[in-house]
């Protein structure tokens, strides 16, 4: 009886130690490959995560990977100059773009004479800059709009255009 208990305990302990050793080894292996990925994580964390693809990459994370691989850091209009500054700081790269050209100077604008109030653009907006409700004309809050253009393809009547951002006094 006693021997059985010892055998069972030893077996289960052995199985447990072997399996956790396997997991630990795998974790160590991923850890050793992690540095490049954790930098991707940090760059990705600085990007606005609205997946507008204006940088030319399918989303924020692919752009972060490309930045690590040497892509320019000033391709993200929604992020604006803040993002460029933060990326330059993180990666020790010169922020050579004049800050004002980078600031997204374009904002979306809804032509309220054409808008039919379908509300399709509202869920498309990653920063909740569109106000309105179904069957009511919508409008875009200029100070929140990042000019990402995600609302333009979903509009059935093509009433959204990009305008130059009005300068605030």
């Amino acid at each position, binding site marked *: 009886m006693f021997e059985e208990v010892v*055998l*069972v305990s030893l*077996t*289960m302990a*052995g*199985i*447990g130690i072997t*399996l*956790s050793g*396997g*997991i630990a080894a*795998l*974790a160590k292996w*991923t850890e050793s*490959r992690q540095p490049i*990925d954790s930098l991707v994580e940090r760059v990705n964390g600085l990007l606005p995560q609205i997946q507008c693809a204006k940088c030319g990459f399918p989303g924020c*994370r692919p752009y972060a990977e490309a930045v690590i691989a040497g892509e320019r850091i000033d391709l993200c209009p929604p992020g604006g100059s803040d993002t460029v500054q933060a990326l330059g700081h993180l990666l020790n790269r010169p922020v050579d773009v004049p800050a004002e050209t980078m600031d997204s100077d374009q904002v979306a604008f809804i032509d309220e004479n054409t808008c039919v109030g379908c509300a399709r653009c509202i869920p498309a907006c990653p920063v909740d800059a569109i106000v309105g409700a179904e069957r009511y004309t919508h409008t875009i809050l200029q100070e929140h709009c990042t000019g990402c253009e995600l609302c333009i393809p979903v509009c059935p009547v093509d009433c959204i255009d990009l305008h130059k951002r009005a300068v605030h006094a």
Partner: protein
Amino acid sequence: MAELFALFVGAALVNNFVLVQFLGLCPYVGTSKRLETAIPMSLATAFVMLLATVLTHILYTLVLIPLDLEYLRIIAFIFAIAAVVQMTELYVRQISPVLHQLLGIYLPLITSNCAILGLVLTVADLSLPQAMVYAVGGAFGFGLVLVVFASLRERLQSAAVPAAFRGAPVALLCAGFMALAFAGFLGMA
């Protein structure tokens, strides 16, 4: 070869984990609202099923049987499944962070998917190639049923369902009808 094929069909259709043995109903109902979650879930489950089968088979034949400890297999297999899921998660996060994000909570929850425990207990006494074929068949059956059910539920969203039946009730009714349909395979093997 014919025997292995019979094993595959038996695992996939005749003894389908979800609709005949009623194992793994939690992910079956939980991840079938949309096709986008159902497909990755069935792929992840298939992956874990195959790996867990191999690992538990090795554990069973090399450790438990020589030591005369077959009665420990349930707890030992749960151990092994948990470890496989952990490893899968680490590996998926390493090779594809996007897929990892997509699977989200479903990946660790596979640990407690009873279809996997049911599978490894069923195939423990088979030979390793037979067990692997059975695992692939079971995973195929699970994925097939999950994808079909998810498609049904997507259709149901735009169907004219009486108010009292909308949502979960009609989904469960559909699951019942699917199980009835699968009962038709019972005579095959």
